[in-house]
């Protein structure tokens, strides 16, 4: 028998950062599907949904999650669940604020299928201006595009709607 809402497990995961965007925890990122603890509280099973197909961070995240939980549980089982696929709609509100504070514009819309409206940042994360333009559709990691503010002239990352 397992219980499905486990405050202790979730709290530990809140402290596991995304390796590429360390201001986000794996919980903020929205990749934790479930945390299930055994009745005696000694083992835990976590279900994660990876962000992107070829994201090199995925294996690091799985390792970091395991390590964090091993501090508090005797047995840790980390599973992946691909379907339904992760979407930026699952980013927490706190995560969006943190992204902005970190200099990355958060996704500006919600995912629509089959065609994606890549959207664009609502405003420059540095000066707040809404006068922004795309420089490149692909960026330093799978999640980002490169944009520029035409007011303060600074380039910045935009987390694409996905």
């Amino acid at each position, binding site marked *: 028998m397992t219980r499905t809402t486990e405050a202790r497990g979730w709290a530990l995961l809140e402290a596991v950062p995304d390796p590429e965007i360390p201001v986000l925890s794996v919980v903020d990122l929205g990749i934790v599907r479930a945390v299930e603890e055994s009745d005696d509280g000694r083992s835990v099973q976590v279900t994660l949904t990876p962000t992107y197909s*070829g994201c090199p961070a995925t294996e690091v995240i799985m390792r970091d999650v395991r390590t964090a939980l091993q501090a508090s549980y005797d047995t840790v089982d980390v599973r992946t669940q691909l379907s339904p696929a992760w979407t930026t709609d699952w980013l927490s509100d706190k995560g969006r604020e943190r992204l902005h504070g970190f200099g990355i514009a958060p996704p500006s819309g919600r995912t629509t*299928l089959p065609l994606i409206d890549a959207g664009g940042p609502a405003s420059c994360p540095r000066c707040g201006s809404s006068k922004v333009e795309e420089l490149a559709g*692909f960026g330093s990691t799978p999640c980002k595009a490169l944009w520029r503010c035409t007011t303060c002239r600074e380039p910045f990352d935009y987390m694409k709607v996905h």
Partner: protein
Amino acid sequence: MVSATSELLPLADGCLILSHRLSEWMSNAPTMEEDIALGNIALDLLGQARGLLQVIGDETGVTEDELAYFREPQEFRNPLICELPNGDFAFTMARQLFVDIWLAHVWSELAATASDEQVRGVAEKAIKENAYHRRHSSSWVVRLGDGTDESRRRMETATEALWPYRGEIADDRWYDAVDAALTEATLTMPPRDAWTQRSSLDGWHTEHLGYLLAEMQSLARAHPGATW
């Protein structure tokens, strides 16, 4: 149920081989932004290939690495178009658009109908990645086709050179989408009924695949069983 292997192998191999081709542009693309874009697209395709090769491997009792690194050319089922050498940037972008359009249809179908949960998951994810790839390749095809005399000449040459290699990926929907994209680029699509190769389904490849595999597989074959 049809064997997952026979259905999925052309798709998995197509993603793997095209990913390797695109990775050859690393540090050679016309601009740094293009280097990054092609790297990102290659990585997405590699991830998609891995997701499918794991499923195929589970069914046939081998690992994804054994499938990628220890098969011979005639055991690969990737569409021929994926293995063609990169040519110039126009050729790479026209090929990318042709393959992206094929993949868009295949992923949508799998996301809706695949009975295997992992295959469905890979497809659901790939639909979105593919949309960004297609946005990139189609914008380049328009920009070059409807560009200078020289860029237009190169895009026309690329389209003609690729045309005999569309056999495994072309159907009515594909032709309609390609026609629309080329029309937007002010280009004319070659005839639908023109002759085409389609021999990869029987394991017959161009001479280029052997050289590609020699490079892609060399590390794994020099150090069998090695892992990161």
